[in-house]
């Protein structure tokens, strides 16, 4: 066979220059947009009222192997730190006990968010038509697997090396018992994966990641470090390096629908709903974990919230999207009010229901009470006095026979669950903006704590039918519920949850709870 002209040219070229040649990632990536083709059935399996443009580009132009190289380098640094120096200095046993407990919740709940984001970005990968946009979402699918594993690694590390493994070692089984779980599932699980694909992207990328990962994954590292925890900054800051790609994906989602007529009709409503959905849980829960789950305080939550949520996200990030018709959510103003008091309201309820947790909670010390009062004037009269009363009645002591939940009952302060957010609230004893609204539908009563959630429910009640813990456990005795949910330590009787982190304090058992005879009731039934 004759040598073609091209072969001759290649041979000639080699005679002149034999410099090694390779192929870079960008040289491959630039062809990516042409990898797809049109065919009759080529449409997404997840409907959306928006049209995502066919020529949308991505900002992080990675190919599969380059993605792996980049992540592998980060993994080497992160796991090297954890397994080498932090282990040698026994770092897990130099973390303040209060923070050790907070990480049972923070790490596991973030893991749920990361896990569901795998599915969420799988849906977006399916929904997008442009190969580059698909590729951006694909990178995120893999990132979310990474983050799921990383969050798990925190609990794994603390369980293996730390001072109290219970709760770290079985969070995936015991987390479902208590009042914080269902709300967490709304924001971190179903809110990401169930709905219009673009609406889910707004929930996940435009709000969850661009707004709340900053306080959740960045600010938390300052609190962790102050309280002796260097494992969390090591892992979470490595996670955050990927979050930039996810924020870019959210930005590109908006870019891809910007010219679609549906965007001008629906985008700001979807954004407002997504923001309220996410803030309704994160604002109180993060504030509670930081302030009540730490000994050493970095700054008041309201300041952190204001910086990251109100100014950075509501102002700068949303401002950048202004040219695409995106406006700051109408509910941002109400959220700002929540940032001041909602976490204090929630801790009061969370502490009252402490036996249903998979972590230990601690009442504020006198020193902390001073800090709260200085930063939230009026705190003592509303909350501090109550904690003093609970402590005086022996709420930390298993022999007292007193659960703070009794205080709510005695004082006729019923606790309700907001149907849409699944966040508990006590309308008659709260400084936040919660107000009780009750609606009846198909023979069932539903309680709501704010107008934004109520509006969502009124539009589509079939999306928010989930039972709450009071409906689920109605008529059940508390110790039975805890035992059924595996809320006990390896001795089979001592609770994982405890109302203190004192090293000298006695630990509560199932029998201590049983003696009290606490039976769940659905407050809506008495209305």
């Amino acid at each position, binding site marked *: 066979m004759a040598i073609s002209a091209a072969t001759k040219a290649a041979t000639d070229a080699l005679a002149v220059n034999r410099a090694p*040649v390779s192929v870079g990632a960008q040289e491959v990536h630039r062809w990516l947009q042409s*990898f797809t*083709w049109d065919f009759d059935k080529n449409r997404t399996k997840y409907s959306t009222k928006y049209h995502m443009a066919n020529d949308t580009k991505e900002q992080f132009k990675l190919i599969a192997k380059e993605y*792996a190289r980049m992540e592998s380098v980060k993994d080497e640094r992160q796991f090297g730190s954890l397994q080498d120096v932090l282990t040698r200095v026994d770092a897990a046993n130099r973390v303040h006990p209060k923070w050790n407990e907070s990480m049972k919740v923070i790490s596991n709940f973030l893991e749920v968010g990361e896990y569901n984001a795998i599915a969420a970005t799988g849906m977006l990968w399916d929904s997008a038509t442009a*190969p580059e946009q698909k590729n951006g979402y694909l990178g995120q699918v893999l990132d979310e697997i990474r983050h799921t594993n990383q969050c798990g690694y925190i609990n794994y590390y603390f369980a293996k090396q730390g001072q109290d493994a219970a709760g770290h070692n079985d969070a995936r089984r015991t987390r479902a018992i208590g009042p914080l779980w269902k709300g967490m599932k709304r924001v971190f699980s179903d809110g990401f994966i169930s*709905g219009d694909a673009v609406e889910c992207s707004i929930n996940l990328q435009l709000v969850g990641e661009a707004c709340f990962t900053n306080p959740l994954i960045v600010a938390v590292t300052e609190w962790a470090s102050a309280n002796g925890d260097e494992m969390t900054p090591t892992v979470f800051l490595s996670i955050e390096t990927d979050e930039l790609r996810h924020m870019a994906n959210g930005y590109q989602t908006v870019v891809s629908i910007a010219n679609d007529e549906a965007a001008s009709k629906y985008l700001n409503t979807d954004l407002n709903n997504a923001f309220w959905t996410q803030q309704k849980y994160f604002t109180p829960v993060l504030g509670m974990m930081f302030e009540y789950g730490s000994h050493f305080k970095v700054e008041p939550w309201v300041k952190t919230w204001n910086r990251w949520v109100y100014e950075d996200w509501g102002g700068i990030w949303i401002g950048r999207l202004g040219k695409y018709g995106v406006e700051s959510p109408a509910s941002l103003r109400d959220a700002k009010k929540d940032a001041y008091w909602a976490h204090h309201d929630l801790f009061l309820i969370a502490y009252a229901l402490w036996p249903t947790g998979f972590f230990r909670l601690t009442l504020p010390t006198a020193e902390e009470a001073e800090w709260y009062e200085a930063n939230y004037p009026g705190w003592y009269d509303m909350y501090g006095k109550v904690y003093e009363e609970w402590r005086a009645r022996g709420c930390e002591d298993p022999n007292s026979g007193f659960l703070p939940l009794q205080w709510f009952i005695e004082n006729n302060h019923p606790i309700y669950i907001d149907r849409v957010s699944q966040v508990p609230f006590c309308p008659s004893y709260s400084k936040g903006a919660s107000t009780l609204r009750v609606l009846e539908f198909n023979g069932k009563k539903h309680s709501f704590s704010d107008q934004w959630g109520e509006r969502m429910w009124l539009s589509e009640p079939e999306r928010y039918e989930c039972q709450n813990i009071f409906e689920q456990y109605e008529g059940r005795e508390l110790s039975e519920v805890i035992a059924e949910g595996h809320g006990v330590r390896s001795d089979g009787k001592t609770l994982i949850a405890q109302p203190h982190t004192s090293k000298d304090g006695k630990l509560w058992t199932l029998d201590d709870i049983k003696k009290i005879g606490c039976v769940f009731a659905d407050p809506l039934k008495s209305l």
Partner: protein
Amino acid sequence: MSIVVSGGRRGLTDPEISKVILAAIPDKPLETQRKMNYFMTPRGKRINEYETLCCYTQPTPDWIPGGLDWGDWTQKFHGGRPSWSNESTEMHSSDWHRHRDPAFRWHALYVKDKAEEWRYTDRFLKAYSADGHVRSIDPVWRDEVLGDYLGAFGFSEYGLFNSHSSATRDCLGDTLRMSIAMIGLDKVDNAQMIQAERTFLAKLVPGFDESTDVPKNEWTQGSIYKGARETVEEIWQGTYDWNEILFAGHMIYDPLFGQFVRREFFLRLSSYYGDNLTPFFINQMQLYHSQTKGVTKDMFHTCLAVDENFGDYNVSLMNMWSDKWLPRTVNALKDFMGIFSKIPTIAGVSDKAAIEAALGRVFDDWQRDYADPIGYKVDTAALIKTVLSGLK
């Protein structure tokens, strides 16, 4: 000391803070059970790191078998469709959390392997180019087969890659979801490697067309990949059941069509045409195929086919799906036979007898590894005969 910490002081290293922390820590650990996920059933004797980090990360309620949560979904699709549901697949399982990647790859292990492959690819390509290997490639093989037909095969891999998107969204278990995403990434990696090879050749061979225009035209309009394209389109977007997508792609189409094209055509023939570049890339694809085979056989054979409650039913369904997807795949192979008329025949290598032998290897492997474990009766000789009827 004050409880307010500012200026980036760290509890681990600041003596004042550290003293307070150490004073608060219990004298002995409060819990003796230090094994995370101690409650789960491991695949082997002990819970390994992969199982610790992956199993039960999914928060599904107990009415999706294997779930540890309770109750309903907190938000559903418009109209009330649930977030995840048993109705998303015709397959049944007593525990959707049972699957394991046989290599126990969690994310860090997965990307570590691929990162090494990327670095080695870079080193290989530099050595290959500096050594002047490209001079030895047969020009027809290089310009037409690699340029056009290998390029067109990239679309098959890209289409299969996309078939994993809805399976990643809809599947019902955590280890399943992670495995599906990973084997999906391997497929787009294959498509990208094919383009990388074509781009590399364009750098070395003046006039070599690295554009995807001709391959795409071949894939969408040509006769050689017609059956393959129609099958891939149906797997990717015509099928909604996530298990059927995986079964069609990884238990029928890829072990037959993919294996023949990669292993018995490009890999086996390339050296006869002076091409020792293509085997470098195809061998990576074959590694991924082998790993994926382990993953999907675990899903379908190790877990679903022997499920204590639904094993018989699942096997029947797999047989039905085989009936559905095998003829399409055979048809894809039949169309692909047209490629042999595009290359110079080498006796004993690309003549009819050699092609028949190659088909025999692929079908025998498939029968042994995929059909026999589910009791699927198949006349491979007849299937090969049908495929060979496509030879021009």
